């Protein structure tokens, strides 16, 4: 970090202004406005400085400029510079956040954060009025994590808005929001949000420690932070969640997780996180528990499919043909007649083609999206099979794998399975099922040894925690989820709701009485 200097502010407004302009390189968006207030023309008593675009123009015009003009007489009659400053602060400026600053660096920082600076001739202090504003994307429906039932609001790029979205959902004095800025150049604001007494204080301290340890020039997205603070780098699995939905973040905070909001991105990090959290969608808690449980099982199944299906197909068709029922084997064999490549090469060609298509689909302007799908469907699907380049079964396997991949709610977990898939295919093509099982064993050892901020990654499964299992593969009805997940939340704040809340029909037949 650069060492903190402290430059005193010149008592002369003009030289102070010149210093500011020099430091900021005479940018065209820096606006200065001088108020004579009865003083000499070339020596205005009050000067206002702000950066256009970072401030809310309504606030600057209505609350500062207007008020100063109205009170110019009083200000001009003020006895001394400090007196004038006091008047400005207490009577004139109609802005909530006002601070008096002494150093030039502070002025620069405040300016860049969208504050307006009021300089008074003859005073070594300046007033910072918080007028931050400017153009922002409004709160919209999240684009990457959509639900059918549930709140439709999503985080935006503004950290203020994001924090307020969380505050609005948790009206508890225990909600703690610790701000810090990281990045020597970008000075990006970061907020660590958690519920005191519910989040585990050790983990909160750990997160603070890791965040404070970051020494970099820039943070442009929460991905930067994630890579700096995760427990292990050489792993395909993410150990932090990123979410675009305030309700999901709040759900996590209520279970004792800690959110890290980064200014400039709608993706908020959530830690510590266990493997199963990547398969939960906030919608699970809004829908009926039966369908939610079913969908969870489908998601876990899809994860396995998307990781293993091509490798299992290769292993079984080239090593363990005895496993396939005869009729199926015969029809698979018939499809393979005349296909030129071995199954593993065929699978690689198809998988890589699919990855290319997928990447093209993401990068392409939206208008051309339909073209991609036509080319993909026709070229990859039908034509390749008809030309005898690949077998139809392989197309089915690859497309089902691809679709299964989209079922996983967390995209970073989905990409993990995409990468692992290729390694598994090599193992399956070399050693058959033995290879696949060896790969799985390796993966299992790896996943079990992973930790997210000290919490075992595979938590409810291993180490086994029966009470946590009620919200992993299945979700029990809300009234049965009476405790927070063990180990993540503070053990003292384990109980989250009363017991015996199972609803039941009224004991007296109220309905019948109404009928009479």
């Amino acid at each position, binding site marked *: 970090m650069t060492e903190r200097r402290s430059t005193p502010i010149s008592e002369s407004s003009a030289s102070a202004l010149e210093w500011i302009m020099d430091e900021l390189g005479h940018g065209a968006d820096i606006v200065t406005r001088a108020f004579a207030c009865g003083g000499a023309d070339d020596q205005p008593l009050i000067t206002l400085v702000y950066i256009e675009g970072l401030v809310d123009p309504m606030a600057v015009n209505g609350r500062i400029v207007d008020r100063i003009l109205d009170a110019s007489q009083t200000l001009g009659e003020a006895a001394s510079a400090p007196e004038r400053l006091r008047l400005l602060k207490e009577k004139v400026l109609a802005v909530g956040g006002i601070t008096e600053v002494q150093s030039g660096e502070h002025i620069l920082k405040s300016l860049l954060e969208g504050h307006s600076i009021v300089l008074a001739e003859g005073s070594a202090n300046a007033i910072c009025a918080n007028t931050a504003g400017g153009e922002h994307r409004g709160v919209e429906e999240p684009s990457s994590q959509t639900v059918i039932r549930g709140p439709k609001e999503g985080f935006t790029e503004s950290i203020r808005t994001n924090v307020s979205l969380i505050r609005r959902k948790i009206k508890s004095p225990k909600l703690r929001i610790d701000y810090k800025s990281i990045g020597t150049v970008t000075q990006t604001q970061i907020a660590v949000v958690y519920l005191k007494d519910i989040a585990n204080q050790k983990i909160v301290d750990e997160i603070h420690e890791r965040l404070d340890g970051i020494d970099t020039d820039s943070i442009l997205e929460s991905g930067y932070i994630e890579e700096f603070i995760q427990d292990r780098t050489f792993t395909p699995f993410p150990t932090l969640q990123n979410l675009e939905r305030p309700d999901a973040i709040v759900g996590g905070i209520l279970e004792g997780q800690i959110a890290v909001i980064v200014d400039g991105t709608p993706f908020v990090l959530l830690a510590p996180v266990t493997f199963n959290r990547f398969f939960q969608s906030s919608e699970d808690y809004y829908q009926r528990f039966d369908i939610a449980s079913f969908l969870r099982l489908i998601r876990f199944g899809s994860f396995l499919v998307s990781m293993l299906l091509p490798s299992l197909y290769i292993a079984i068709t080239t*090593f*363990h043909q*005895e*496993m396939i*029922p*005869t*009729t199926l084997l015969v029809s698979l064999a018939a499809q393979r007649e005349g296909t030129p490549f071995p199954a593993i090469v065929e699978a690689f060609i198809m998988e890589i083609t699919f990855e290319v298509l997928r990447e093209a689909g993401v990068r392409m302007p939206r208008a051309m999206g339909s073209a991609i799908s036509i080319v993909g469907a026709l070229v990859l699907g039908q034509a390749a099979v008809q030309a005898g380049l690949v077998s139809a079964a392989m197309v089915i396997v690859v497309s089902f794998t691809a679709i299964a991949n989209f079922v996983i709610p967390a995209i970073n977990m989905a990409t993990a399975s995409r990468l692992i898939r290729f390694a598994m295919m090599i193992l399956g093509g070399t*050693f*058959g*099922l*033995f290879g*696949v*099982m*060896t790969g*799985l*064993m*390796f993966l*299992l*050892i*790896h996943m*079990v*040894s992973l930790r997210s901020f000290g919490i*075992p990654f*595979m938590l409810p*499964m*291993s*180490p*086994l925690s029966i009470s946590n299992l009620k919200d992993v593969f299945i979700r029990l009805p809300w009234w049965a989820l009476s405790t927070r997940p063990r180990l993540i939340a503070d053990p003292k704040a384990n109980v989250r709701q009363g017991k015996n809340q199972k609803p039941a029909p009224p004991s007296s037949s109220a309905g019948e009485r109404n009928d009479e």
Partner: protein
Amino acid sequence: MKEKITSFQVSALIMFTIAPTGILLVPGAITAFAKQNAWQSAVLGTLIGIGIAALIGYICNQNPGMPLMTWLERRFGRWACVLIGLFLARYYITVSVITLSEFSNFISDEVLHRTPQWLTMTIIMLVVLYAVGQGIETIVRVNMITFLVSALLIAAGSLLIVENMHAKPLLPLWEGSFAPVLKGSLLPASWLSEVAVLLLLAPYIKEKNSAIRTGVAGVALAGAAISATVAVSIATFGPKLVPLITYPGFFIVSVVEIGSLLERLEIVFISIWLLTMYLKLSVLMFGAAQCLIQTFRIRSERPFLLALGLFVVLNAICSWGNAADFYSFTVKAGFLDLLFSNVLLPALIAAGLLVTAKGTRRQRSYDANDS
């Protein structure tokens, strides 16, 4: 000693240290002795095994939570510790070599007939070393997941094979003398004596003084698995056919046919079995490595592990010329080695502990004062 594991986890780990090779090789061997009463042999063997587990557990409970070798050194002095450490390390290395050979023999018999064994052995060893390198906590946790999966699979499997089972081959119950049953029980008992690995695991257990419970539960689980496999294979194939089949445990599943869709299911069972086999080998390698590391206070564990792995692989490749050599070694020498290292040596240690018991009491009170 910062890693901590629970008693239940260790029981499950002991089960998977014994059961994988147990269910593979025991049924054929003891059915040859005890015919239709082989399951009684297995049950009897389990009872003997429980006795051994209690002995081991007794020794472990004396240990105030130090690594085994450090503790023994304190009790018996440096030279006795080095002797025991070397002997145990030799034992674990031998068993690792045997298990690795069995594992890779099985794979080349059943799955990959033409892949050279040195390659399968190397791959197995790489995974095992990775597990051992991650520490006992990781091994135990992987074991827990495998335990859950295999429990589900076994439940499903037993539903499927019910149709092929008959009570008739298990009858008559008490035919002939008890001698063959007793003789047959020695083999499962010797397998179950592998519970001695608890000596190394006990210091990591969270619950104090739970070693006896842990060991007995682990042996009971493994013994139940072996006995059930024996009983089911006899009920399915009859006492005459079982000794003829190399791997009866899997053969049971291979005869399951449900319509034309579900058949040849043994490969699914073999796949899960592979996982348990990895665990077994990991535990044994962990034992070998820990014995040496603790005895000689080795600092740089990773290069040492790599060297140990290489040593075991080379040993497995070069030791036996053919299947008959290997078989006669495991049945004759291996059997004795198991009993000696897992029963006799712990018994000696227990005797030593009793003799030096006075010393401990003094030391314990000293420790108590110290803290």
